[in-house]
């Protein structure tokens, strides 16, 4: 172990293996959160060709739902979390119905402006309803405890987050590829007019897409709240932006791409700070610089949405 560590330190500028692994697990769990939120962006984009700017704010709303469930309604944390996820799904559907559906046949710019408006609405609504002062997210001892690995102690949450993410990801892929609802979603995403001819209820399917995307963001939001237990009305902006960047980096419209993008961004962000502590002030800038580089050299993202050949 000593030797391995020495070799490792030689390559990593003095960082020992334990610390590195700690950073890596941190990066993976942050990346998982970005991935969960990014999936929502990519699903909505795939279906409506719309960047749902309110997605980050939907993510924020979840944390408040969970907060009030535990603090005001005195629900056990798991009940409150499940309710928060369901409520967020409903919020996503409401958002689609109120802000996007009436504009479905309008020029793309109108629906984009509507998305920005919806984002501001949710943020300010949160300020009015919940107050602008940050609140403490309920802590769940079972999840936030630390476990000891030799010399390093790691929060259980660091493992829970990627595991939960992977479970939901496989659930989503199963839904999309092996169920009728999923088939309808893929069909609507590709060509909603033809899907309608086949008898697919297009409005319902788009609603379901929003519900699922929002619920995944909700799961991400709750785990975000557990990891960084301070919630505020504007807390969704930065994670939302970064998840959006993750979706673009991975290739927007592609779910696997969103996940890959999320992990790259999460790990990259943590590693930059770990290896170049002097740049830690630029932590958030990393995502944006990376986005610019990707857009310059591979504008369709890493996986690149398949563009159907027109035969």
């Amino acid at each position, binding site marked *: 172990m000593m030797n391995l560590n020495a070799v490792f330190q030689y390559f990593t500028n003095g960082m020992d293996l334990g610390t590195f692994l700690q950073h890596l697990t941190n990066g993976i769990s942050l990346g998982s959160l970005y991935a969960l939120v990014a999936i929502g962006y990519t699903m909505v984009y795939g279906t409506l060709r719309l960047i749902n700017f309110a997605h980050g704010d939907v993510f924020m709303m979840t944390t408040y739902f969970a907060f009030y469930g535990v603090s005001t309604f005195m629900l056990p944390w798991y009940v409150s979390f499940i309710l928060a996820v369901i409520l967020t799904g409903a919020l996503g559907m409401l958002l689609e119905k109120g802000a996007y559906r009436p504009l479905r046949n309008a020029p793309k710019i109108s629906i984009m402006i509507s998305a920005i408006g919806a984002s501001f609405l949710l943020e300010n609504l949160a300020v009015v309803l919940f107050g602008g002062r940050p609140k403490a997210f309920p802590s769940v001892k079972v999840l936030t405890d630390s476990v000891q690995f030799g010399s390093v102690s790691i929060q259980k949450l660091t493992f829970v987050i990627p595991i939960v993410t992977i479970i939901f990801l496989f659930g989503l892929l199963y839904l999309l590829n092996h169920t009728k609802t999923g*088939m309808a979603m893929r069909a609507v995403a590709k060509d909603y007019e*033809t899907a309608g001819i086949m008898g*697919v209820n297009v409005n319902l399917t788009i609603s379901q897409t929003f519900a699922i995307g929002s619920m995944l963001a909700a799961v991400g939001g709750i785990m975000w709240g557990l990891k960084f237990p301070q919630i505020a009305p504007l807390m969704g902006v930065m994670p939302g932006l970064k998840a959006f960047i993750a979706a673009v980096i991975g290739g927007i419209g592609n779910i696997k791409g969103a996940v890959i993008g999320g992990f790259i961004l999460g790990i990259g962000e943590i590693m930059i700070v770990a290896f170049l502590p002097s740049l830690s002030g630029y932590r958030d800038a990393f995502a944006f610089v990376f986005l610019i580089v990707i857009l310059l050299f591979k504008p369709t993202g890493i996986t690149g949405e398949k563009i159907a050949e027109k035969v």
Partner: protein
Amino acid sequence: MLKIENLNVAYGGIEALKGISIEVEEGKIVTLVGANGAGKSTVLRSIMGLVKPKTGNITYHGKNLLAVKRHDIVKNGITLVPEGRRVFPDMTVLENLKLGAFTRKDQKEIKKDIDWVYTLFSRLKEREWQLAGTLSGGEQQMLAVGRALMSRPKLLMMDEPSLGLAPMIVKDIFNIIREIHSQGMTILLIEQNANAALHIADVGYVIETGLITLKGTGKELLANEDVKKAYLGESVIKLKA
């Protein structure tokens, strides 16, 4: 079976259909021929509920079709093979066929119908697991027809099934239309290839800038001088009636 009366459709300020009436009788092949932009596709799109007519009626077995929701039209036994095939490119052939049967729940019968489509189009069977986007144009057209058949329609509407296909394949497609028709399907066919369409049609309508200018049996229209001049002049495909 299907009756269109005084249908008037406008896109923005432009009138695509200026009050046309068409009747499709059960068991017949009815065709609409006409030039690009005459309004042929608009007729089919109105029937499917994809465009909202300004005025006019569409009734199907006496039922007002304009009041039926878009996704319920197929449940009434009407389906459309859209122009340009519109198969789902990143789904397999099999998935495309299953989508055609989206509103049906009788799994056993769906399986049987998939086999039936494969007997009609043996090429699709060979390519069952291939992504539809990788098929040739002709194969995609076969898939589009097969997908439409999967809903077990009583009225099959086809929008330019020969568009962009090689003459050999066009011939195949028309043979298949006849084959399907001989199994009892009512067909409403739109074609720029007027010659081929009129050869297989029982009834034909000539549509010009949103108006029906001629109606007759396929044979009558084929013999009509005006039709010959306007639509049959240079056709290279000869089909025996």
